[in-house]
């Protein structure tokens, strides 16, 4: 599973992306985040306030109850500020 991070989520996690292989019990975005938080303080800090985290799976906006699976590209980022 490919994870990508943008803006201050990227800065707090400390990298712009990574390939991860969470256990099969990780079936949704929420479970993926919980698993990441258990991997280190950088994730705990980045995902500390989920109200200001947006998630895209395979480049489409999703809610946190969306399923994830091996091969997916999952992106985490703050509310956007383009335009």
């Amino acid at each position: 599973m490919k994870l990508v991070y943008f803006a201050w989520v990227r800065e707090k996690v400390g990298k712009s992306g990574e390939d991860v292989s969470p256990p099969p019990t990780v079936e949704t975005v929420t479970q993926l985040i919980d698993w990441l938080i258990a991997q280190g303080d950088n994730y705990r800090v980045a995902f500390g306030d989920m109200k200001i985290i947006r998630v895209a799976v395979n480049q489409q906006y999703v809610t946190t109850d969306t399923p994830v699976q091996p091969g997916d590209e999952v992106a985490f980022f703050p509310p956007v500020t383009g335009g």
Partner: protein
Amino acid sequence: MIRVQQEDFDVSREIASLRAGDLSIGGICSFIGTVRELSGGAAISSMTLEHYPGMTERALSDIEAQACARWPLSGCLIIHRYGKLEPGDQIVLVVTASAHRQAAFDACQFLIDWLKTKAPFWKLEAGTDGADKHWVEANGSDTLAANRWDDTQDKT
């Protein structure tokens, strides 16, 4: 047509290319967003726009298709820049052309409202001392502006 690029753009050239001799067009609406020197009361020296390559192009193409389905447009163009920009620089261009001016205006506003709230771009501002950098926070009034398009299937 959508483009995500570092380079600047010229609105006259883009409009000419979009019109491309289509004589059914009666009105062309365009919007250019520019970098202001003040952000939340503080002067900035530059702004760096990060985006999500791949998702950006896909999302912009999707919203362009939605605008074309919703209004009778003869042409539609979105250009969004990324990278380092300075006060006064152009950030974004939306151009809509139609036989009828109200469709051109409505589609142009719909697209810029959408870009402000959904296009995966993030602005990192640098203060005038060069050291202080901070990420721009999303603006609640932009969300309200975008939401108005959910209530109406057709504003023409």
